[in-house]
């Protein structure tokens, strides 16, 4: 029996290789996601460890707020002296750290940006917990005074600056852009590599002067333990002498906390990638089920013979499963290898958008191997189980018969199970829509999967009209060849349906995303159209807030009537981080038409807060209620003064005044400026004036309403492009499925092909026949996918209506193009099988058994 299994594997290596390929791709996705996120984690952890001192002193919870909004709290300089005097401290160094300082290259381009932070420190020689120095001066001199800086090697290199050059910088402080002389090159952390972040070293007093009004203050203090003193002992000693609101923590704890925070963020990336890996796996499962079903069907005579010769059901079953196991094993191992290549690709891709991982290595951790193998093997075995069970049910007498019909479960049973799944899926989606957060999302996802699998089960029946309709078209256009193609796709409805289903899943998601994307874009357009009255907008180009000085300078431009500053931060309400905007209500009133649900914009003062309708609903706020908002410095008690509609022009959950946010302890950094011009001047005139202000600062851009809308739509497009690319892999697997099914069908029909050729079907006609069958499968998958995608898309848009996607837009043309492209893909998928069919030697074909 084992011999038979082995021979089969060898004899059918091409067919098995094709199904193994599906596993390879799916597993590669899984392994690649893990390897890449591990690499990211490793790089960040290296930086964290290399830059954390034995004991870190900072304002309480400083790290918790740093991710979103610049914490404005500081520590007076005299604390450093107190700490240095502690007997357990070998050294105490105050650090001034500011984010949002960027280097502009020789070519006037921003270095880094778009994600990685632009860090600015003062220099000191503190040692990290790794035992190495955090900063090392590699060449040149340390900067002195206001007009000198040092840069890290990579940043200087990218910007093209040499020691002695004049460096242009963008800062969020008093001088939005400034010039400084490059005096030295420093190395950051132990391993080099800043993951794309840029580092600018200033003189300590210069930093204090620029960002802290010249006060002698620090943002954190690093302590080094004396010999024989533990981190904990020094921490405890430090905490006794620290002023209120400032705490010391052991370096290990800080590193762990930061690593966990990074881990959480990376976990999100990992999950995001794994969702797509999962989609690929589901699609791959269809491919594997199909391949094994066909292989078993083709060998049914042989299997029946084995049964007739005395093999037990279980032996037949096991023979098929063993084959699957070998295929799954090979596929998974190869998949891990390909996953490694994929991770290299991802690394390059992220490098291109600024997350520089050049120094990071790609670790293949045991966990990656185990998960990949388990997933690969499980999916293969699961997919092979049904065909194997069917194989074992072949009656021994079948060996004597000419044509063996595989025992198939009745269509009715499939319909019942399929519709049951669809029903459950829809129910789960509905519950998911009502539910919130992660649980709601997973329920929605599970529901969609249920519907997809249910429809796949029913597709032999549901898909029939599509094929028959297409068949009528084929008959008209291609005559008998068309009829043959149609009949071929109908002769094995299960096989056709399973193959089409794989494509259906991919296209459902693509169509769904295209609807969400189109709706989001239309909603954006409408929101801007309806509510934006400001003619011009200044926004950040790199997701980093900018200096309030810019607003100040623009106010003095001739023709500018008002500038509404908009800031955002993430303080806590009721223990969880919330999304809060801040603005000057009077200025905003002339920039936006804000149709308030309750109350008015004018009611917003320093002790008040406006809430979005969603927030009001979920938190049960009413006008007059008190909201305790925990800012870095203090918790402010704010009174709800009004409710504005969610998803409109105002996208934050809460809105406070600029002063409220600044008092709370966030450094004044603008993220958006709405500029209203005086009616007497033209837009272009005002524009020219503002352009002059922004000259040389590539971190912010000036746009009119249309450009602003375009920019936001551009972001949606970018996101869509990423999602399409990731879904592309699932589509590739589905296309492989079509190739596989067709190739197997051609082999199965060798005699028939020979007969057709013998009675005068030309090679060309034969190729066309295979091609048309392929197109039928592809179009079936695409049509079902688009229908489901539209249904899901509309449902999701409704569910997200209060999240900003309040206008439905179904891009019919685009959807039609998807179907057309699928038909084209069908043509491509048929190339090899068609060639194979056409190449069959007529004589050999008719005489094959």
């Amino acid at each position, binding site marked *: 029996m084992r011999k038979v299994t082995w021979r089969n594997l060898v004899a059918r290596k091409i067919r098995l290789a094709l199904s193994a390929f599906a596993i390879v791709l799916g597993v590669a996705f899984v392994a690649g996601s893990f390897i890449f996120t591990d690499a990211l984690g490793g790089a960040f952890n290296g930086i964290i460890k290399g830059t954390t001192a034995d004991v870190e002193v900072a304002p309480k919870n400083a790290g918790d707020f740093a991710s979103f909004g610049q914490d404005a709290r500081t520590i007076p300089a005299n604390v450093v002296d107190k700490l240095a005097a502690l007997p357990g401290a070998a050294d105490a160094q105050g650090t001034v750290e500011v984010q949002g300082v960027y280097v502009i290259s020789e070519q006037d381009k921003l270095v880094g940006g778009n994600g990685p932070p632009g860090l600015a420190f003062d220099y000191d020689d503190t040692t990290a917990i790794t035992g190495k120095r955090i900063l090392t001066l590699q060449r040149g001199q340390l900067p002195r005074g206001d007009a000198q800086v040092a840069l890290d090697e990579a940043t200087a290199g990218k910007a093209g600056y040499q020691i002695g050059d004049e460096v242009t910088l963008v800062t969020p402080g008093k001088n939005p852009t400034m010039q400084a002389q490059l005096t030295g090159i420093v190395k950051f952390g132990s391993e080099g590599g800043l993951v794309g972040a840029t580092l600018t070293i200033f003189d300590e007093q210069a930093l204090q002067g620029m960002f802290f009004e010249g006060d002698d203050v620090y943002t954190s203090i690093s302590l080094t333990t004396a010999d024989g003193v533990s981190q904990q002992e020094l921490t405890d000693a430090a905490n006794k002498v620290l002023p209120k609101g400032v705490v010391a923590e052991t370096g290990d704890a800080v590193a762990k906390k930061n690593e966990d925070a990074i881990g959480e963020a990376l976990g999100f990336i990992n999950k995001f990638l794994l969702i797509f890996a999962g989609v690929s796996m589901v699609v791959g499962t269809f491919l594997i089920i199909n391949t094994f079903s066909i292989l078993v069907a083709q060998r049914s005579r042989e299997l029946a013979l084995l049964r007739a010769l005395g093999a037990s059901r279980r032996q037949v079953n096991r023979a098929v499963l063993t084959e699957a196991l070998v295929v799954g094993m090979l596929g998974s191992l190869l998949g891990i290898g390909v996953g490694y290549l994929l991770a290299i690709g991802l690394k390059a891709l992220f490098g291109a958008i600024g997350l520089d991982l050049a120094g990071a290595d790609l670790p293949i951790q045991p966990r990656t191997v185990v998960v990949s193998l388990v997933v690969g093997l499980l999916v293969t075995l699961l997919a092979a189980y049904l065909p194997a069970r069917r194989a074992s049910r072949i009656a021994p007498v079948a060996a004597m018969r000419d044509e063996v019909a595989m025992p198939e479960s009745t269509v009715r049973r499939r319909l019942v199970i399929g519709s049951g799944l669809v029903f459950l899926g829809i129910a789960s989606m509905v519950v998911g829509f009502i539910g919130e957060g992660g649980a709601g999302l997973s329920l929605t996802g599970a529901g969609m999967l249920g519907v997809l699998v249910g429809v796949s089960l029913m597709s032999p029946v549901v898909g029939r009209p599509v094929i028959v309709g297409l068949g009528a078209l084929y008959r008209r256009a291609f005559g008998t060849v068309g009829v043959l193609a149609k009949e071929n796709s109908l002769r094995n409805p299960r096989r056709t349906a399973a193959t089409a289903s794989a494509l259906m899943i991919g296209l459902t998601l693509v169509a769904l995303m295209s609807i969400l994307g189109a709706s989001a874009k239309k909603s954006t357009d409408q929101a801007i159209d309806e509510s934006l009255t400001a003619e011009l907008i200044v926004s950040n180009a790199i997701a980093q807030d900018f200096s309030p000085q810019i607003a100040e300078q623009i106010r003095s431009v001739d023709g500018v009537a008002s500038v509404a500053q908009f800031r955002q931060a993430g303080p806590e309400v009721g223990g969880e981080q919330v999304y809060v905007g801040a603005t000057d209500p009077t200025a905003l009133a002339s920039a936006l038409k804000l149709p308030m649900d309750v109350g008015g914009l004018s009611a917003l003062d320093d002790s008040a807060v406006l809430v979005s309708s969603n927030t009001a609903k979920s938190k049960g706020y009413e006008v007059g209620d008190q909201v305790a908002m925990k800012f870095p410095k203090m918790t402010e008690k704010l009174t709800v003064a009004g409710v504005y509609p969610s998803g409109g022009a105002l996208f934050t959950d809460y809105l406070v005044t600029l002063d409220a946010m600044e008092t709370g302890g966030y450094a004044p950094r603008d993220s958006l400026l709405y500029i209203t011009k005086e009616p007497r001047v033209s837009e272009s005139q005002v524009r020219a004036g503002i352009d002059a202000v922004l000259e040389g600062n590539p971190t912010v851009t000036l746009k009119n309403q249309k450009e602003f809308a375009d920019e936001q739509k551009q972001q949606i497009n970018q996101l869509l492009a990423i999602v399409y690319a990731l879904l592309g892999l699932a589509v590739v697997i589905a296309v492989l499925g079509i190739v596989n099914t067709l190739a197997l069908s051609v082999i199965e029909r060798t005699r028939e092909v020979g*007969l057709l050729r013998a009675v*005068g079907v030309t*090679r060309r006609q034969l190729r066309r026949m295979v091609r048309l069958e392929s197109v039928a499968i592809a179009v079936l998958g695409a049509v079902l996918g688009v229908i489901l995608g539209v249904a899901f898309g509309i449902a999701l848009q409704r569910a997200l209506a209060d999240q900003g996607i309040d206008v439905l837009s179904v891009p019919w043309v685009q959807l039609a193009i998807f179907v057309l492209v699928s038909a084209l893909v069908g043509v491509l998928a048929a190339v090899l099988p068609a060639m194979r069919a056409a190449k069959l030697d007529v004589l050999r074909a008719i005489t094959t058994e």
Partner: protein
Amino acid sequence: MSRTTTAPATATDARPAVAARVVGLRKFYGRGDAVVAALDGISIDFVAGEFTAVMGPSGSGKSTLMHCMAALDTASAGDVFLGDQRLAGLGDKQLTLLRRDKIGFVFQAYNLVPTLTAQENIELPLSIAGRKPDPEWFDTVIDTVGMRDRLRHRPNELSGGQQQRVACARALVSRPQIVFADEPTGNLDSASGAEVLGFLRRSVDDHDQTIVMVTHDPIAAGYTDRVVFLADGVVVDELREPTADAVLEKMKVLSAQAVAGTAAGA
């Protein structure tokens, strides 16, 4: 009606028209020492409107001869003519069109496309050529094979004999110049075989069809006008106006000769 109403009335000379002709046909399989001559220099004419049987022991080259003549295989040496058309030198496309338009073929088994109905199978060569069958002729053929009430059935709903009759109808419906049949009754019982043979005979008698049929069965050979005997890839004898008994007698003589020949050769 006579079995030899063959000469076309239009022919001015007395020579009967030749539907197919092979000249010095050789076909080798294998290479080097293992080379097998399946056909070892055959020259033979098949006269239009005649029903010819090809007989011979297993491995004597009958199928190979059919395949070479039906443009399914190419000769190693020698020539094959269908009417005036020389097959040598034709490309795959021309050979395919030739098969489609000039040749009918009936195999021993597996003759029909399982997804098509009997009628669609019969019309297949015409419809792939993009032609409509001549309705009158179609009716004649259908009535001759007696399949009128089964036209909508698929092959798996027909008996072996019925399937073979459908296959014959397909071979005839495009009015090919010549029909080749390789053991068309090999898989049938004697009653079904008789149906098929009777049908082939009628199409020769009534419609001047030219048919070449391979068979092992002397009774089947008895339906034909002429029997050609092959052995080891050459024509060893032939018989006109055969009866089953005469054929059986001839086969006995030939196999005795073969045994003697082998004995002498040894």
